[in-house]
C-alpha cells in the first residue's frame, strides 16, 4: 500500500516545512548565542567559528531536505498506481511542498554566507 494512503502520509505533507522551521529557529538561535558568546572573534580556518557553525547548520538542513525531496519523488509512482485519487494528490502536494521548503531554506539561510554577523 502506498504511504500516501495512510495517516502517516500526512506527516509527509508538513515534513519539509518542519525542517525549514528547524533551520530557521536553529540559525536564529545559534546566531544570537554565538554573538553573545563572542564566537565571531574566534577565527577558524578562513572564517570565524560563528560563521562556520551557521553555514554547517544551514548545509545540514539543506541536505536533509534534498534527501526528503528525493524520497518523495521515489514514492510518487506507487501513489499514482492506487485507484483512488487521493494518494496521488497527496504525493504531488508533498513533493511540491518539500521542494518549496528546500528553496525556502536555501533562500532564508543565504545571508549567513556573506552578511556581517554581529553588527
Amino acid at each position, binding site marked *: 500500500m502506498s504511504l500516501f494512503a495512510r495517516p502517516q502520509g500526512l506527516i509527509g505533507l508538513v515534513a519539509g516545512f518542519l525542517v525549514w522551521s528547524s533551520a530557521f529557529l536553529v540559525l536564529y538561535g545559534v546566531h544570537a548565542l554565538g554573538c553573545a558568546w563572542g564566537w565571531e572573534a574566534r577565527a577558524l580556518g578562513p572564517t570565524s567559528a560563528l560563521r562556520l557553525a551557521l553555514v554547517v547548520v544551514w548545509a545540514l538542513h539543506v541536505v536533509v531536505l534534498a534527501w526528503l525531496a528525493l524520497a518523495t519523488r521515489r514514492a510518487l509512482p506507487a501513489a499514482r498506481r492506487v485507484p483512488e485519487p487521493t494518494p496521488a494528490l497527496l504525493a504531488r502536494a508533498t513533493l511540491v511542498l518539500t521542494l518549496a521548503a528546500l528553496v525556502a531554506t536555501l533562500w532564508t539561510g543565504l545571508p549567513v554566507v556573506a*552578511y556581517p554577523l554581529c553588527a
Partner: protein
Amino acid sequence: MTDPIVAARRARAIRLHRALAEVWDTPPGLPRLAAVNHTIVGRRFMLTALVFFVAAGILAMLVRTQLALPGNDVLGPEAYAQVVTTHGTVMMFLFAIPFIEGMALYLLPKLLGARDLAFPRLSAFGYWCYLFGGTTVLGSIVFGAAPDGGWFMYTPLTTKPYSPGIGADVWLLGITFVEVSAIAAAVEIVVTILKVRAPGMSLGRMPLMAWYLLVTAFMILGGFPPLILGSILLEVERAFGWPFFDPERGGDPLLWQHLFWLFGHPEVYIIFIPAAGVISTVLPVFARRPIVGYSWVVAAVVAVGFLSFGLWVHHMFATGLPRLSLAFFSAASLLVTVPQAVQIFAWLATLAKGRPVLTLPMLYILGFFFVFVAGGLTGVMVAVVPFDEQVHDTHFVVAHLHYVLIGGFVLPAIAGLYYWLPQASGRLPVFGVGKTAFWLIFAGFNLTFLVMHWTGLLGMPRRVFTYAPGLGWDVPNLVSSIGSFVLTAGFALVALDIFLQLRHGRSFRRDPWNAGTLEWAMPTPPAPYNFASLPHVSHRDPLHADPALPQCLAAGEGYLGRVREGRLETLCVSMVEAEPEQILVLPNRDYTPLWTALALAVFFGAMLAGLYWLAPAGLVLTLVFAWRWAASDAAPADPPPEDAGRGVRLPLHVASARPPAWWGLVFLLLADAILFASLAFGTVFLAAFAAAWPAASPPLLSETAGIVAAVSVAVAGVAAPTAALANRRGGPLRTVARDGLLALSAAASLAALAALAWIATGLAPAAHAHDAVVGALLAYGALHVLIGLVASLFALAQLLRGYASSVRRLPVEVASLWQLYTGATGLVALALAFLAPEALR
C-alpha cells in the same frame, strides 16, 4: 398524479425527519443554555462576534471623530489610549478570530457530510469562555478601567509600576480566558476535519474550505500558546512580582515582544487564510467551473501556514537586533508572497476558464482583489528594513494594517455571509440594497485608509490623541474621518439588507447558486441533524455528480438513516481514505460545558479581583467538572458492533481503538508542547541575554529533591503507558498488572508533587528572574503532574467500577498519553531549571 414510488419515498423522509428531529432538537427557553448542537453554537459564536464588531466599530468612530480636526477634545489622552487599545483588542481577539471559529463550527459538519462536530460539548464550553472573557474586556471600557497599553501590550509600559490600574489585568486575564476557547475550537476543527467526514470523502475530495480551516486550526494551535504563556507570565509579574520582564531584576521587556509577535504575525494569517478559503469556495461556484489547481492550492495554503511563523521579528525591526537576524526575517517576508501568488493565479485561472457571473458575493471578492493588490504593495514596503524604520509607528502602519484586515478579511467575510445566508435562513435576497452597501463600503474604506497611508508618510505618529494644525495633517485626517463615516454607513446598510432578507426574503427549494458541495444537499434552514442519512461521497462536488442526492439522503438511503435507542449518531472515518470506521454517539443538551466554564470563570474572576486565595478553588472546581464530563461519556458494558446502513457494520466509538477524544488529546498536547517550548525559549532567552544576570544570590535548589522529582515523573511516565499496553492485550494476569501500574503512576505523581514543592522552597521568585523562570518551569511541571494524577486515578476508578475495559480503553489511553507527555516535559523542565542558567553564560 404523483408517482407512487416518489410518494412512498417522501413519506419515508417525513417519518425519518420526525424521528430524528425529536432526538436532535434543542427546545427554546432555558434548555438553550444546555445547547451543544453545532448549528446553534456556531450561530452564537458568529452573532456574538458581530456584536463585538459593532462595539469596536463605535470605538473606531470615536477615534476618527477625535482625529477629524486638529486640537480636537472629544477624547483626552487617557481615554484615547483606552479607546484605541480596546478597539484593536476587540477587533482582533473578540471579533475576527471568534467569527472564523463560529463560521467553521457552523459549516464544517455540513460541508463534510456529518451530523455534528467531533466534540459538540467542547465548542459549547468554548463559547461560554469566549462570552465571559470577552464581556469582561469590553465591559471594562464602560468603567474607564480598560487596558491602554496598545493591543500588543508592550512591556514595560504594561508592568505594574507603569500601569498600576486594573486595565492591563483585564486584558491579560480576559484575553487568556478567550484563548481557552480558541484552543478548544482549534482542537474541535482539526479532529472534525480529519475524522468526522462522510465515508468516501477522502482528503483529495474534501472541499477546499476544509483544507483552509485545517491549516487555520493548526496555526491557532501553534500561534496562540506563546501568547497564552506571555500573558500568564506578565500577569504573574503584575500579581506576584515575579520579574520576567523587569530589566532591573534579571528580566527583559524584549521577551514579551518575542512571545507576542510569535503569535501576532501568524494571527494576521489566521484571519486571512479562512477568508481566502471563502474565496476559493465562492469564486468557482460563480465562475461555473471547479477551481483550477486544487492540489497546488492545498500546497500553497500549507506553505503560507508555515512561512507566516517565520516573520515574527519583522515587527521588531526597530529594536536594534543584529542585521543578520533581520535578514532572515526579510527573506521570509518575501517568501510568503510566493504561495499567495499561487493562490491568486488559481483564482484568476478559474475565472478565465469559467463563465463568471457577477453576483453580490462576487462583487465583494472583486473588491478584495483591488485592496489586496494595493495592500500587498504596501506590505512589501513595510517588509524592507530601511523603509520600515522610517514609517515605523506612524499612521502608515495603521493604514496598512486595516488594508490587510478589512480588505483581506472583512470583505471576503461579507462575501461568505451573503453566500451562505440562504443556507442558514432558507431565504434569498429580494431588494438590491446589497450593491449600494458595497459601493459605500468600498468608497468609504479607500477614502479612510488609502488616504491614511499618506498621513503616515507625512509623519503623523500612531496612538497620539491629537495633533497641532499646520503640519499638513489636517486635510488627510478630515478626509479619513469622513471616509470612515461613509464606511460605517455601508456596514449599517449590510446589516439592514441582512435583516430584510431574514424577514422578507423569498424562499427557495434547494441549492440556489447551483453549488456542488454538501451543505446544499439538505433542506434549508438546516435541521439540527443536518442530514437524515449520510452520503457516500465519490466526487469532489457530490451534488453535481448526483443531483438526486438530497432526496436519497432525506429518504434515509445513506448511512445511519435511522434512530436507534434515542441516540444521536454520526460516522467516524479513517483520516486519508475516509473508510467508515466508527459510529460516533453524540451528546445532546448538557449543562456541563456551562458549569465548567463558570468554574473556570471563578478562577479568572478571583485573579482579576486580587482574591488570590480563591483562585486555586476555581481550578479545583474546574477539574471536578472535567471529571464529571469525562465520566458522563462512559458505557457500563462493551457494546457490540452495529449496522451502520449500506451493509456496513461498525463499532461504537467507545469501543474503538482510537476514538475522536484520543485524537483530541493528541492535538491538545501539541499546543501544550508549543507552550512548553515557548517557556523553554523564555528561559534560555533570559539566561543568555538578560542584562542583570547572573543573580547576586542564585536560588539554592536541592539536588536530592531534583533527583527524586526526575525519578518520580519518569516512573509515572513509564508506568501509565505500560498499563495501557497491558490493558490492550487483556487477560486476567495483565489486568492485575494494569491496575497495579496505574496505581504506581498515581503514587509516583504524588511523590513528584512533593519533590517539586521541596525544590520550590529554595526559590525567592520575586527577587530575580532566575528564581522566577525556575519557578515557572516547576509550576508547569506541577500542574501537569497534578492532572496526570487525576487522570491515572480516573482511569483506575473507571476500570474498577466497570466503566472501562480493554475494549472501552479511552480513560487508560488518556492517562497513558498524559503521563508520558508529563514525564518527557518534566525531565526537560528539571534539566532546564537546574542547568540552563549556569550553562548559558
